[in-house]
């Protein structure tokens, strides 16, 4: 990029000369008080003439609500911040959740950067809430299959149809990992791809089609052996222990980063995420200017090249010839269709969750902490909620075991959610919790895991959620617990999802997650309800 930089210097000199000589001349470069020569030298003029930096945006801050996988853009965003003098603050949320929050006018965001605005487009509010959107990069949601398994299935030579994928999932030939359609765009896109292809109409699905394909979706769900609340963690969990599955549904950009996975694109097609950076309406001129400067930066030739090289996504720097050929599946254009599909998935189709909630009500939980815990658990029973939030509540067919503990197990409560989804019994149990005693985490966790193991089957997804606000006070310690775990095969493979809250030990909780293939959820900032909702994507 030498030439444009040199050119800019020349231009700056000429313009500065013009300013000096013609005092009365109102050239824009003089009028700003900042001669063009003082612009950072690393800033080449964009390929697109529209990206000529016209406005000084330095000092502006852009608050962006983004999908979690946008994290891999941080190094590029940091360079953009340095060059443009702006600050980009990202906050992460799942696409569906985040979209609904923005459409409801919640939060104080200037922009969004979800993998797709397809879901947002189903809301009438979009036209008044969105000012401008620009696609930055693209990646389809595909199937990544272990190389040897792909060869055995013949999928490396000939792509399967979605119907063949379903048959293989049902027969046990193909066990897969997939993120939650309610929490994560990649899981959601997989579900839409599948439902659309199976509906066989050749057009976007409707609510009627959802009913028609429910039986096929149930067959497909038999093959799910790994669940996740986000596409990034799905890959992490797969990398850590790939033994349970033959492949994963995820973004092509993530599949390509794993050399042991073969990219398989079902014949009927896939859905592509196009990452539109989206300016929300009424955010003021500074935010608008900072947004446009950031878009121009990200769309610049060299930056598009860098995005393609570093994140494996398709950009303006890649051509259609570089891409693996795929048909594009249409995305439904009615909100009720999408809601019907999601609701069918969580309440009828997918393997039901079998959850043990191990809840600390020791003395230190007294007061505000216990209130926060109750509110968080009650939020999982909020059958009156609408949108995606209502799908995070306990669902029909699911089983929940509460294990309340302090120095020992204080109370237990088993519950199978009835077909009508009535959760009043859970609510009254939760509201009756009270505090007393020490914190014997690991002794009671052994009990919880045994309980989980007893009710685990091939037809459910079993996990343990551990909530404690303090360090372990009683025997056994995590060391003895680990030895017990290693020697107890029937509890292995049940992930423990630990919530970090109060004085809980981050180190020990991380050890625990590592040992069991679980994950730590940070609620150290106090938002327990958000943490429990996030966890629901994993159960």
């Amino acid at each position, binding site marked *: 990029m030498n*030439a*444009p930089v040199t*050119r800019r210097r*020349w*231009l700056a000199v*000429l*313009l500065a*000369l*013009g300013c000096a*000589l*013609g005092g*009365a*001349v*109102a*050239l*824009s470069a003089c009028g700003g008080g900042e001669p063009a020569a003082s612009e950072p030298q690393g800033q080449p*003029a964009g*390929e*697109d*003439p*529209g990206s*000529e930096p016209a406005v000084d945006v330095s000092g502006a801050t852009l608050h962006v609500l983004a999908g979690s996988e946008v994290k891999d853009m941080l190094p590029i965003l940091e360079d953009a911040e340095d060059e443009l003098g702006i600050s980009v603050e990202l906050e992460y949320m799942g696409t569906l959740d985040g979209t609904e929050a923005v459409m409801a006018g919640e939060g104080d965001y200037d922009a969004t950067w979800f993998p797709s605005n*397809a879901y947002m*487009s*189903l809301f009438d509010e979009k*036209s008044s809430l969105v000012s401008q*959107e620009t*696609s930055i990069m*693209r990646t389809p949601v595909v199937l990544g299959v272990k190389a040897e398994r792909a060869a055995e299935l013949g999928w490396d030579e000939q792509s399967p149809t979605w119907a063949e994928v379903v048959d293989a999932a049902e027969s046990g030939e193909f066990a897969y990992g997939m993120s939650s359609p309610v929490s994560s765009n990649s899981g959601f896109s997989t579900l839409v791809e599948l439902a659309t*292809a199976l509906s*066989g*109409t*050749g*057009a*976007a*699905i409707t609510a009627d089609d959802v009913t028609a394909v429910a039986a096929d979706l149930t067959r497909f769900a038999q093959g799910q052996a790994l669940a996740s609340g986000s596409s990034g963690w799905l890959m992490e969990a797969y990398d850590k222990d790939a033994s349970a599955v033959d492949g994963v549904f995820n973004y092509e950009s993530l599949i390509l980063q794993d050399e042991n996975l073969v990219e398989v694109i079902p*014949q*009927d*097609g896939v859905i*592509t995420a*196009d990452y539109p950076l989206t300016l929300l309406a009424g955010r003021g001129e500074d935010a608008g200017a900072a947004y446009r400067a950031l878009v121009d930066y990200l769309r610049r*030739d060299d930056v598009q090249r860098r995005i393609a090289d570093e994140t494996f996504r*398709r*950009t*303006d720097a*890649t*051509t*259609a*010839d570089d*891409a693996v*050929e*795929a*048909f*594009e*599946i*249409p*995305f*439904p*254009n*009615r909100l009720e269709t999408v809601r019907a599909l999601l609701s069918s998935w969580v309440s009828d189709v997918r393997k039901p969750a079998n959850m043990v909630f191990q809840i600390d009500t020791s003395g230190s939980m007294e007061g505000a902490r216990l209130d926060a815990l109750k509110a968080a658990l009650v939020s999982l029973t909020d059958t009156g909620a609408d949108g995606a939030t209502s799908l995070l509540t306990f669902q029909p067919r699911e089983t929940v075991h509460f294990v309340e503990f302090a120095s020992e197990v204080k109370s237990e409560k088993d519950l199978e959610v009835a077909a009508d989804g009535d959760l009043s019994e859970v609510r009254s149990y939760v509201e009756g919790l009270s505090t007393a005693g020490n914190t014997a985490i690991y002794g009671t966790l052994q009990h919880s895991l045994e309980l989980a193991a007893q009710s685990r089957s091939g037809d459910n997804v079993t996990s343990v959620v551990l909530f404690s606000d303090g360090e372990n006070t009683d025997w056994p310690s995590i060391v003895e617990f680990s030895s017990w775990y290693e020697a107890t095969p029937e509890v292995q493979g049940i992930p423990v999802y630990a919530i970090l809250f109060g004085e809980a030990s981050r180190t020990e909780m991380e050890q625990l997650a590592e040992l069991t293939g679980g994950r730590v959820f940070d609620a150290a900032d106090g938002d327990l309800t958000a943490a429990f909702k996030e966890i629901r994507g994993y159960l």
Partner: protein
Amino acid sequence: MGSRAKTLVAGVVLILAAIVVAGGIALGPGLLAGSEPADNESADQSQELTTVHGVIGSEKESLFADPEAKEIFARYGLDVQVTTSGSWAMAERAGIEQEDFASPSSEVAAAHLTDVHGDAVLSTTRPFYSPLAIATGSTVLDVLAANGLAEQRDGVWYLDMAAYLDAVANGRRWTDLAGSEAYPSSRNVMITSTDVRSSNSALMYLSLASYVLNGNAVVTSEDAAREQAMASLARLFLDQGYSQSSSAGPWESFLSKGPMNQPLTLIYESQYLEAQMNEPTRVTDEMRICYPDPTIFSDHVVVAFSEAGQRVQDVLDNDPDMARVIARHGFRVNGANSGAFSEQISQAGLTGYAADGTFIDAAQAPSYEVADAMLQTIEALY
């Protein structure tokens, strides 16, 4: 010309422009005035550029941002600042009549604007236009041709709109077509357009389909429009599922994912041409441009609200250098400089484009009221 080369040329042009401006400043207004194309007004032009504000359709953004276009405007003492808006939405845009000009991308959108702000409009011109086209691929066209849906005449591909609309009405899939092994998609044969509720190019497509389905005649009554929308037009949009809101969207998707992914993509001809001239590596060997037959023209109308807006009209209408820049962005030029388009095409060595005057059959758009009746009927079905 490679994209890097284009940057360099643009750079040289800017330097020259800067020399002209700086030189003019150094040497005094008298000398610079001599080099101005417009004569008597130029004495003050060299001292101060008049800032002109306009609202334009997004497909003209790169034209107005082109450094050479800016330099030509500067020769006339103009600094043209634009913001973009959907063409249809311009009429309702708050304060639009305070702008110096507006440039929607269709006659019907311009009529809407004149309807609402008739008193404020000083004059209306049509400096350039672009036919509606379809970005597609060689494999796809061969399959369509084998089934009587497309044909090539004099090296130019045409999609038979009547046959296409019939295929849509019958819900035909690609796999129902003879020879579909080459393109074995189980999806319906369906053009990918933008969202008809927000975008001009989709509105043009709607107008075209309405005209063809009505036996190549414009629908003139609102009742007939509603009936036609309900019976056949709505499906063209509803069955696509989610569609993007501006014409840059489907085109960018096509460029990056190719014709296998998105076999028939509705575009303005100018988009394809602009990419071929300015970003040739993105247009792969497989990609083709095809014209709907009949086609429909997107007229780029300039509506002036002030004297300064009329000066912009004048430059776009009459300056031969500007005509060349307009053509370089893929638009076909009206008036005295209309030769600029074919010059640019042949200079760039591009083929597959219909020459001026070869569009025997062009559809007419319905009136604003009839178009609105269709839109409202379709909107209610979403």
